[in-house]
């Protein structure tokens, strides 16, 4: 039984539809990507999963059970807009939040120390949040979302505003959570993170799910039309090969757009005729391209 199953949920605000018939499932130890432009309905979806607002139609099941207050303690939430009590000590507020999620005071304190050690900032235990840098506040916020060992975690823009070192640190932590069997719903605008972390994704556009499924299969649906080519000597006349749409010369080679994958072979033959080729690759479309294609095309 999957930890989280969302079935054809619909949410309307007045006469505006915020989410229109969205379904997805997250299995144990899986990071599920929820993508979409601003205002596509991601936050509303997450709020429905969190039980903050109730769907107008459809159903959300947690380990097969419908929503109830008991479900709250197994949910963890990292909101997009970050915030803690600025004037209260880290230990006080994290323990408070953990207690609200049904953890005992003692367990919460011990768990907080463990997490702070993990992030190599044990000295923050007695500090006020306002004394910490923005990046470190994010770490504390992340701890607040996972301190009570939730089975389902919702991360809204988990890595925004972090430096590359901290992004790496949190990414590793998220992967560890996944490997421990936590189900994670992950939303971001950074497609490279999605490609690295998520198995399945949904791309939402204007309240509707427009693209859904495993990343690998989604990519297969999109034609491979980018060729990377580099050789020792300059290659001339690439744009004359039939089927080539455009050629961009980079410092160490060429990037070509082709109409169909077969054209790539013609490009390779053309290059080999002029000399040895060091690199040739028919690139998969990146998620970024897919996203822009899906969302951008019907963007008004």
């Amino acid at each position, binding site marked *: 039984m999957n930890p989280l199953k969302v079935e054809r949920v619909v949410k309307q*605000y007045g006469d505006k539809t915020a989410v229109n018939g969205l379904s997805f499932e997250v299995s144990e130890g899986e990071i599920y990507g929820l993508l979409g432009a601003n205002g596509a309905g991601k936050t509303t979806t997450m709020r429905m999963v969190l039980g903050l607002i109730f769907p107008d139609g459809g159903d959300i099941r947690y380990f097969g059970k419908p929503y109830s207050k008991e479900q709250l303690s197994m949910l963890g939430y990292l909101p997009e807009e970050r*915030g803690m*009590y600025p004037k209260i000590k880290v230990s006080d507020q994290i323990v408070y939040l953990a207690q609200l999620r049904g953890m005992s005071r003692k367990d919460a304190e011990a768990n907080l120390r463990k997490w702070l050690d993990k992030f190599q900032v044990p000295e923050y235990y007695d500090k006020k949040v306002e004394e910490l840098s923005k990046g470190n506040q994010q770490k504390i916020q992340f701890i607040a979302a996972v301190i009570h060992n939730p089975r389902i975690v919702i991360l809204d823009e988990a890595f925004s505003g972090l430096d590359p070192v901290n992004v790496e640190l949190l990414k590793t932590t998220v992967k560890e959570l996944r490997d421990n069997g936590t189900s994670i719903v992950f939303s971001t605008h950074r497609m490279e993170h999605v490609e690295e972390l998520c198995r399945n994704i949904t791309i939402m556009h204007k309240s509707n799910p427009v693209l859904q499924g495993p990343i690998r299969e989604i990519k297969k649906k999109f034609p491979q039309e980018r060729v990377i080519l580099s050789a020792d000597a300059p290659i001339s006349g690439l744009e004359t090969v039939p089927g080539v749409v455009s050629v961009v010369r980079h410092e160490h080679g060429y990037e070509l757009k082709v109409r169909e994958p077969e054209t790539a072979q013609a490009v390779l033959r053309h290059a080999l005729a002029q000399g040895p080729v060091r690199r040739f690759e028919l690139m998969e479309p990146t998620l970024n391209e897919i996203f822009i294609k899906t969302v951008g095309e019907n963007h008004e």
Partner: protein
Amino acid sequence: MNKLGTVIAFTMRNKMRSKAFLISTLVLILLVVIGGNVPYLINKFGGDKTRSVGYVEGQYPEIVQGLRTLYAKQEKPDVKLENGASDEKQLKAWVEDGTISGYLTFTDNPAIGFPSAIYHSKSALGSDTSQSLQIALQEIKNDFVLKDAKLSDEQKSRLNAPIAFQNEQVTDGSGKTAEEQGTAIGLTYVIVILLFMSVMISGQLIATEITAEKSSRVMEIIVTSVSPLAQMFGKVIGTFVVAILQIAGIVGALVINLNLPHNADALQGFGIRLDTVDPAMIVYTVVFFLTGFFLYAMMFAAVGSIVSRTEDLGQAVLPITMLTIVGFYVAMFGLTHPDSPLIVVCSFIPFFSPFLMVLRVGLAEPGWWEIALSIGILLVSILVLGWLSAKIYRTGVLMYGKRPSVKELVKAMKAYKV
């Protein structure tokens, strides 16, 4: 219920630890200690001060002489007549440099055969000194008139003795004496002020805290961990307990100070006796304090929840602030007119009844059914407002951006299905 306890404990702990709370409590206690000793201090320094008064006797040296003899007879005269001024100009100069408090001049007044006296001082309003002079002059005038009537000294003193006159309340039981009435007015005054202050201060605190939680976005995590109802009531109850502790400290300091021997005497001098306080009054005070506090606290919480930025809060709570201020001023008016129809009517209006029913219990004699009805209305409105506030709160905490209008709020309530 467990989570409610967690919210209450967290709210209390943070309040009690904050420097602002500790300092303001200490300052208030200090003020109360000073204020509690004021009656004693007034008696000590204010009561027996002698003021110097100059005069231009003109054609009435016998009046000035009469004043002199009269004040000389008193044990502790509060007026001393200064002679030696050549003219009014010099007297004016003396008033300026503070040698004398003021001076007397006389003008003819043939109609009553006694001159009009004018007391010149820096203040145009009557003072203790001018009152003392007026009484003294009245006595001298009486003497002048009676000189020809050939009355015996005994008859004269009988004529001059003031008549006894006292107010007593009509009730079914034993009426309140003036002493009890004085105590009741004083006590009611203190209670109304305490209620007003604690409602305003705690209410504002609750609203500010909720808005701060919202604007710092910590609210997003809290609403996903605990039901908004538990959160709102936890905050209200936590703040209430802290406010009660604070008030207990202040009232405790006041009672201890007033019961110190030197202050108790001074208070008795003003006709206030703490042992005449009716126990029922204390019970009603507690009841109305509780209900009044919760009524307003919940409204403040609801308003706090719909505002996203602390800057907008002042404007949003204005209607509630106005309600408390109106209640307070009606109560101040009621101190002197506890039986006026306005007070009676307002003592059944839930927003004002905490102030006004306490006042009526203290100063008038409302029937038991009136008190019961007022409490009943209050309890029902607390339930209704509590339900409504919880609904607003549940919706408000999720709404960001500009302050929603009532229409938008209702629409959002429908959308969120609260």
